[in-house]
């Protein structure tokens, strides 16, 4: 069941009502049952995967807490188990394909591709959460491992498929579901849910249909420079709206039952630098990388810029690989790593006599423009089917100029309109909050706002969602 499917949205109403009707101690079991059922609507057999993973991680965490002297061993056993399950489903075929390439290069017979098994949805996300659980246990942040807590932490359905990637210390304490009901909570939840539905159907999907065609093998070879730029921007916008839509829906639905999930996006295309981009884009992933991978690694190599830069590149390449088993994703990650290194080098110049230059307004604008351009360029290998396609498209964008427009005018207008929306989005959000506060401050304003204005706005959003509904599309991040 997709978050934007009719069945999900309609079942959500009674499911939420029943949640609040239940006595507090029953709620966690109810939510767990709902989560398992939700996962089973995709593939009943795959319910076993997160269960096995949670069991293994729980056992490792218990042992490492009980036997601190053997902590390292249990910790690494747990991590190895998670990576083995994750790697088996996610990277088995990729690895085999690459080995076969090598074998073919040496004239050897390729290995056969055994086991045609699908990738369990959300595995990238819950694997990372499981690893963070083990690290937290090793660092003494989790004093006692309770299986039901861990299993619910992983399975909690609003974030199961594609995040936000939550830390146990922020979700764990909420899993007693003891928060009393407040109307404000319901309204905040519905705000996010409806906005997500509109973002997905009205913003992301129409861009997606153009992107799907424009990134095809032969199209890439015949597109003009303007086409390639428009398509790269269109994909950047599509993936933003698509994933932000999913995140909004996840956060909104959790809010309906009183759970606060962390934010995932903060106007990423307003980033002032490559480093700032990662403070705004898929924030829970970059936080995970920072806390559990980058910080411990760099902390060990303190003071060595070379090691810092190398670890940035490696870590970002891994972030790319996490998105999918393909070299295009790795290239995307490496590009981002390179941007970050470049920015760090520039920043370190700030500590020299060049400080006045690095802190100038011109430099700030330069970095803004660089970030937008570089992030857009990096989406190219992320989206194209092959490395050759990516090279073709990037060459068309940056060197081999060809003029003309291949597509109907509506495509270019749509991209322009969506880009403009991105520009004004923070101002719109701010004005919306201000308008809400003003209305609420009026006499009777709060009542009118909650029971008239909001329902009317929800209805408008739902109407747009319904008329732009296209059953054949799915969320991009469900593949990762």
């Amino acid at each position, binding site marked *: 069941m997709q978050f934007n499917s009719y069945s999900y949205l309609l079942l959500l109403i009674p499911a939420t009502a029943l949640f609040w009707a239940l006595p507090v101690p029953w709620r966690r079991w109810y939510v767990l049952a709902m989560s398992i059922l939700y996962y089973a609507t995709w593939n009943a057999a795959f319910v076993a995967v997160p269960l096995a993973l949670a069991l293994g991680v729980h056992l490792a965490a218990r042992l490492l807490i009980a036997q601190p002297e053997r902590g390292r061993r249990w910790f690494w056993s747990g991590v190895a188990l998670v990576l083995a399950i994750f790697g088996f489903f996610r990277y088995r075929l990729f690895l085999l394909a690459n080995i076969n390439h090598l074998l073919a290069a040496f004239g050897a017979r390729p290995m056969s591709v055994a086991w045609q098994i699908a990738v369990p949805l959300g595995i990238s996300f819950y694997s990372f959460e499981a690893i963070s659980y083990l690290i937290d246990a*090793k*660092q003494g942040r989790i004093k006692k491992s309770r299986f039901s807590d861990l299993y619910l932490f992983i399975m909690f359905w609003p974030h199961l498929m594609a995040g936000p990637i939550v830390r146990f210390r922020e979700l764990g304490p909420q899993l007693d579901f003891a928060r009393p009901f407040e109307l404000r909570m319901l309204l905040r939840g519905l705000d996010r849910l409806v906005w997500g539905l509109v973002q997905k159907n009205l913003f992301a999907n129409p861009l997606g249909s153009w992107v799907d065609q424009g990134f095809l093998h032969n199209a890439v070879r015949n597109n003009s420079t303007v086409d390639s730029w428009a398509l790269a921007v269109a994909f950047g916008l599509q993936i933003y709206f698509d994933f932000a839509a999913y995140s909004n829906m996840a956060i909104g639905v959790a809010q309906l039952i009183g759970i606060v999930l962390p934010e995932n996006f903060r106007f990423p295309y307003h980033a002032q630098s490559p*480093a700032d981009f990662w*403070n705004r884009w898929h924030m829970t992933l970059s936080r995970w990388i*920072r*806390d*559990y991978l*980058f*910080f*411990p690694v*760099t*902390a*060990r190599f*303190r*003071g060595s810029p070379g090691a*810092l830069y190398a670890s940035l590149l490696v870590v970002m390449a891994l972030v790319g690989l996490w998105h999918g088993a393909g070299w295009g994703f790795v290239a995307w990650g490496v590009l981002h790593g390179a941007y970050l290194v470049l920015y*760090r080098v520039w920043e370190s110049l700030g500590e020299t006599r060049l400080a006045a230059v690095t802190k100038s307004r011109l430099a700030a604008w330069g970095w803004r423009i660089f970030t937008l351009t570089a992030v857009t360029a990096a989406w190219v290998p992320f989206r194209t089917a092959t490395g050759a396609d990516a090279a073709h498209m990037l060459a068309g964008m940056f060197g081999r100029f060809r003029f003309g427009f291949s597509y109907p005018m509506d495509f270019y207008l749509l991209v322009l309109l969506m880009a403009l929306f991105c520009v004004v989005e923070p101002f719109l959000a701010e004005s919306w909050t201000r308008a809400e506060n003003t209305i609420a401050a009026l006499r009777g304003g709060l009542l009118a706002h909650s029971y008239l204005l909001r329902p009317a706005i929800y209805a408008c959003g739902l109407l747009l969602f319904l008329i732009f509904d296209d059953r054949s599309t799915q969320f991009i991040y469900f593949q990762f």
Partner: protein
Amino acid sequence: MLNPNQVRKAAQEVVAEMIGKKVGDADYLISSGLIDSLSILKLIGNLENRLSVTIPAGDLQPDDFESVDFITDTVLRVARSR
């Protein structure tokens, strides 16, 4: 043995030095964007020099340095004298 007041004072000074202004002990530094994750490493180095201690950062997370209060707790918990 480190003195909590001495650690707090050192933390306040190091933070103020790095961001160029004084902040409250409970103010969030990382999530508010005042300090980024790489600057935390510099912050740790500065604290180590000032207090003449070693802070083994391998088992820490940036969250442990989220505010002056957190920094004080963290240093008192993990710092070893040189």
